[in-house]
């Protein structure tokens, strides 16, 4: 049981990447038009963290996996119908605002409070997982702030791989500039790992896992605590879609030779 892990994955929900997004300003600040009806998915990098966590739990008997997610209850329920079929976990929902515009520090405070209150969590054995950035705010700070609030000072960001040792140590590969990985060895938990893509493909949906998960997910959603997120002095001067629309020249009748010549001239031009 040296590697019986306690893994908490923090994962938000985001609009499906194929949806058209349009910013609007409401009484509580900026948001997305029709945000509550846009199809949502689990945040992609956080989803990678969940799949890595699920595999670690499966390989290490006695381990446990929690998924902590902040968002409107109705949207969480919708997303969990799919995510719940990917791997077994205990959902810890927090009912709160959706989207990327609330302040990360407030989000982190709510997540840290929920994690600290988890019954049965041994914080000395905790691996705190999440995406290294979200697909909403994309700031890459929330997980770090949660770690600080929980007093975890072994932190790794842009993680693509974790390898557990027999003695409870683990090796971590973090992305750094230029397509390289920094290799670190941490002798023991607790630690924070903000995941990049990792190495695992998305698991297939397993309806049996989904049924088992939903038995815990629905009561958890019913009991989810509501939080409001403070702005911490953050204000939005403007929120806009980029106006950059290019005048595209579509060449349908050029030969491969002609295209190649034009491309070489373009590539080699200063």
């Amino acid at each position: 049981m040296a590697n019986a892990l306690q893994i908490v994955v923090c994962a938000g929900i985001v609009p499906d990447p194929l949806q058209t997004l349009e910013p609007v300003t409401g009484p509580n600040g900026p948001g997305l038009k029709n945000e509550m009806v846009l199809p949502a998915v689990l945040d992609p990098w956080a989803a990678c963290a969940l799949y890595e966590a699920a595999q670690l739990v499966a390989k290490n008997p006695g381990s446990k996996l929690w998924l902590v997610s902040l968002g409107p209850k109705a949207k969480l329920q919708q997303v969990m119908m799919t995510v719940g079929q990917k791997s077994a976990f205990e959902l810890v929902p927090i009912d709160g605002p959706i989207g990327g515009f609330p302040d990360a520090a407030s989000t982190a405070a709510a997540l840290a409070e929920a994690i600290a209150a988890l019954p049965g969590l041994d914080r000395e054995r905790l691996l705190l997982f999440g995406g290294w950035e979200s697909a909403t705010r994309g700031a890459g700070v929330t997980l770090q702030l949660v770690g600080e609030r929980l007093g975890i000072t072994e932190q790794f960001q842009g993680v693509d791989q974790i390898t557990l040792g027999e003695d409870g140590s683990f090796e971590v590969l973090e992305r750094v500039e230029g397509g390289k990985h920094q290799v670190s060895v941490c002798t023991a938990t607790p630690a924070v790992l903000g995941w990049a893509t990792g190495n695992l493909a998305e698991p297939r949906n397993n309806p049996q896992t989904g049924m088992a998960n939903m038995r815990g997910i629905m009561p958890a959603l019913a009991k989810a605590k509501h939080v409001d997120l403070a702005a911490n002095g953050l204000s939005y001067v403007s929120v806009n879609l980029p106006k950059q629309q290019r005048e595209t020249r579509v060449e349908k009748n050029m030969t491969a030779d002609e295209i190649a010549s034009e491309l070489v001239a373009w590539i080699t031009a200063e």
Partner: protein
Amino acid sequence: MDHSGVSKMETILVLTHVDETGSALTKASLEAVTAGIELTRQLSASLTIGILGLNAEAAASVVAATGARLLAVSGDAFAQPRYATDAAGCEALCRATQASIVLAPGSSRFTRVAAGVAHRVGGFIDTHITALSGNDSVDATRWFYRQRIEAVVSRNARPWFLLLDAGTHTAYAGESGAATVEAVAVTLPATRTAVEGLRIPLLDAQTIRPDAKLLFVTGAGWTKKQPDGQIHVAEASSLILDFLRLTGASLGSSKSLADQKAEGEQSVLPFLTHMNQIGQTGSTPRHAKGLSTCCHGEEPHVVGWRFIGERRAISLDPNCGWTRGKADVVYIADAFQVIAKVNALLEARS
């Protein structure tokens, strides 16, 4: 520190760090110095530059001409990036200056720790800043939803940490000179992490080149059946690698191509990894030019092209996303044929 707002005179700290030599500032750090100088001038503020690294004092000479107060945190503990030690070092620099605004490069080293440091000194942080503006106040531009929505934000809480995206400011290039550097003592925390080094791809496989002028993006079409009904992965691999060798381009990939696995879990194109991924779940690099091949150019891909200057694409689909105002030129053609001929022309010129 002052949490009350923006009316008092701002004190600006630019956090910088050394490169792998241990005694020279990184380019991104020098870009942050430029941003700091500009913001100091704009706000009539005071400027301090803090340097973190193995031999931080030695790196100070290149910013001596800024006239800024120079602080350094040096020692073996800062030879390699690591959360516990770097956070302690940056925290010490922040506490020594009592800065109200902290600028720092958005490098992997500082993105790992900056939020934690902001929390420790009671501050707040915004990252991926692409521009700073405003007169008496500070307005920071950044993107949301993976480069799909652009916002200008401001804060009236201090200290305010702002992490700057690389390539958004010119690197500071003042004359080197003798610098007076104040060493800042750090109480080192216990750490359980040992940094063992970097895992670097073999030279032939080193396809991510952040300083390249050209980004060459490959899509899943390279591994699809060609007009003869066959898949030509070996030919695709050869054409792509030859193109990279001849142009010095950086290689990007669509998610669908990076996800493809052959037997043994190795990528179909072995030099491609998820680190090459451009777009919604990948990176958003900065290059002067970008050439897309065999990629349909839909929104999840194109968000990764936000900071690419000139864009061209080769696609067999005349209705692909690139033709809808997302590229400057789209060639409706077979990328296998075109890239082979491009390679031949470039080979003849070299």
